[in-house]
């Protein structure tokens, strides 16, 4: 028996970091698989490139840092980041978009801060926003739904991703949000712009969009699964979705020609992915339940504001980054009440009950 001075507890719960990461990845798999099914081989290539380059960048940074890379790579956080970046990319984006995204997420988004647990901004959203601003064409070229085996074959897809896509309007189009934004700029009004919109198809995910964001249904299932597993708490997703739904309902009721219905809001863009998988990122969200409610509501509010009145059709990335920046402030001001004390830290006064 070796003896060292160690405090209790002498037993520990069994859930570890790598297990949490694995659980999140598993919860993302249905939506990812559906995206691959919708957009075929090119999407699979892009996904693979992004994840592999995430891991390579992680290993590279760890090497620079002078630590053994293997234990850190095994925790699965780089895979998860790569997966989330890929899920938010246009499915037929060229290979270097994936590599750039991985580099921004891992190097600028995570490792320069000091690695896992130290970053201020969500790496995947940072990559998404940086790419969107830097490469607006590539980041807004949305391919039509072309399911696996009906779209381009293995080799053709390889060429598509690695030597550039012949962007013909025949195979690309706009997302719902993009359609509405351009419609407004051409003085078209809402019900008309979305003439061939199907709420059900949008919910299932049979529409143009980012690789892993289209299927609200599967993301919802994954997210609820994570809450049931206790990996994430309900506070952020519920407050985010509730705020967005509330605001969009109110404005839709006031002016249905300029404001999307709540159903469209919910099933467009990255809302559900963000609500369950991005906003709930442990590192960049507040620690306390109340703080998380504030954070979630803030995200919902900003998403609505940017979508409705901003210059970009989609506002989730910006909303998350802005709220990430506020998180330290929220954590500074919102703290739990300590036993036997008031919220201001003064001991309870029992002289006048």
């Amino acid at each position, binding site marked *: 028996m070796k003896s060292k001075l160690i405090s209790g507890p002498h037993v520990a719960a069994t859930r570890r970091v790598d297990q949490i990461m694995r659980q999140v990845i598993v919860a993302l798999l249905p939506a990812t698989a559906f995206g691959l099914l919708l957009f075929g081989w090119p999407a699979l290539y892009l996904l693979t490139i992004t994840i592999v380059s995430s891991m390579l960048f992680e290993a590279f940074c760890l090497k620079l840092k002078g630590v053994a890379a293997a234990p850190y790579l095994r925790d699965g956080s780089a895979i998860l980041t790569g997966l989330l970046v890929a899920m938010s990319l246009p499915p037929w984006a060229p290979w270097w978009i994936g590599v750039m995204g991985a580099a921004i997420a891992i190097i600028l988004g995570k490792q320069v801060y000091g690695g896992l647990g130290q970053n201020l901004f969500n790496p995947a959203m940072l990559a998404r926003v940086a790419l969107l601003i830097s490469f607006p064409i590539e980041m807004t070229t949305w391919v039509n739904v072309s399911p696996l085996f009906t779209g381009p074959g293995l080799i053709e897809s390889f060429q598509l991703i690695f030597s550039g896509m012949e962007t013909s309007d025949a195979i690309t189009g706009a997302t719902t949000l993009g359609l509405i934004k351009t419609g407004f700029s051409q003085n078209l009004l809402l019900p008309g712009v979305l003439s061939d919109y199907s709420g059900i198809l949008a919910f299932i995910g049979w529409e143009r969009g980012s690789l892993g964001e289209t299927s609200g249904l599967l993301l919802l299932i994954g997210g609820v699964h994570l809450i049931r597993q206790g990996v994430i708490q309900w506070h952020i997703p519920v407050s985010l979705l509730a705020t967005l739904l509330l605001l969009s309902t109110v404005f839709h009721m006031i002016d249905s020609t300029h404001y999307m219905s709540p159903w469209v809001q919910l099933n467009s863009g990255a809302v559900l992915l963000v609500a369950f998988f991005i906003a709930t990122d442990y590192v960049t969200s507040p620690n306390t339940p*109340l703080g998380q409610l504030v954070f979630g509501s803030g995200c919902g509010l900003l998403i609505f504001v940017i979508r409705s009145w901003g210059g970009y059709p989609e506002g989730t990335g910006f909303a998350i980054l802005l709220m990430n920046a506020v998180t330290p402030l929220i954590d500074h001001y919102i703290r739990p009440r300590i036993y036997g004390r008031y919220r201001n830290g003064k001991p309870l006064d029992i002289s006048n009950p």
Partner: protein
Amino acid sequence: MPAFLENPRLRGGIHAEERKHYTSGHAIVRNFPLPKKLYIPVQQHVGKPAEPVVKVGDIVLKGQLLAHSQGAISSPIHAPTSGKIIDVKDFPAPHPSALPVRTVIIESDGKDQWLTTHLPSDPFALDPEEICTRVGEAGVVGLGGAVFPSAVKLNLGRKNQIHTLLINAGECEPYLTCDDRLMQEYAEEIVSGIRLMLNGMQAPKAIIGMEDNKPEAFRAMQAASLPFANISVEQVPTRYPMGWDRQMLRYLTGLEIPADGRATDIGVVVHNVATAHAVYKAICLGQPLISRVVTVSGTAVAKPGNVEVPLGTLMSEVLDYCGLNKARMARLVMGGPMMGDALPHAEVPVVKACNGILALSHEEIEEPQTQACIRCSSCVTACPVGLLPLEMASRIRANQLDAAVDLGLKDCISCGSCSYVCPSNIPLVHYFKFASGELVKRQQAEHKTEQTKRLMQDRNQRMERIRQEAEAEALRAQEARAARAAQQAAAKQQPKEETA
């Protein structure tokens, strides 16, 4: 948190793997073979150590006073068996670093002969003061682990006119079942002890709080307390650390003790259930606290169980009795696995605080590597006090101890819930204990600096005074010399004048 986010009765806590089934099914072993030698430390309680009243070579009887209490908060020590005092010396105590403390060593004569005592004819007719005195003289201390002298608490309770006595039978630590077994086997005696405590404090009612994982003990205690309308038995959810008296109190009564106060401030006194049994034995049987029930468990012992052990028995003997497999033991813990202390070796005596001896194997304490904090805030959810363990730990890592204190470091109860749930296996409690120790050290250093400064000032003043005195002395001497010289001159002049 605003009210809707905070459960007013129960906060934080964890579901730890209980592992109570190893020992909960077996009756308390009462025929533990009497050891040859017993090592009885004079400090087995909170407060001042007891002062030995016996000398080497004295023959003592079982229950005889070995060391009397000194000061307001202290407790006497008695002989666990009859025999000869063979030494009074420093001996390793059951402490994480096995620090030596003053210890009386008895060589037993094997007769186990009791000292004759006179028992009260009706213990329930005793004066409250008399009950407290007898409890104090019997060396009864809190047996839940805090080992605070019980008589002091009883007196406090009486003086503060409390309205409720809360009997803590939570036993929320995994593995431990000594209170559970005690309640199953001695329910009536415990209830008598509680009645005596109520008399001693002149308190109107008692609540026995028990986690709902002890149905047999619950039934036994309910049956035993049925005749007494002022004693009720309540079940509380099984959720560590339910046995934290303040958590249980809040759950059962909704009352919260102010951070700078004591339970008596809100009219409550909390005693452990085993203490109630010790009070019964002290008053109704005249037996001081010289033995206790200890849970011996862990997968490195072949026959885990609850054993009634004379205080002062070496843990190694208890473990051998329970079939310890030395090769399998990876860690020896006194107390429960959550808050207990890891001991460097088993050659230390069982003391009043020792409610468990755990010989844990590698599988039980499997220690994965510490990883970076991912700010998952599981620790925030688990903390029963409402602290931010992750923030405190990051401050302590940066050596910003004052910032950690601002975050509530001093409110931490070291329950270990945060470390238990941490997915990165960060030893949070270790950080907090380190910081607390560091703060104490700092305080002492500050105290020392001030002391030195004061001594320095005193010395300077003294030197100044001496210098001034010396100067004054020199001045006086000079003046005296001058006066003498003048006198002599005058004396010389006079005869000259006369002769002139």
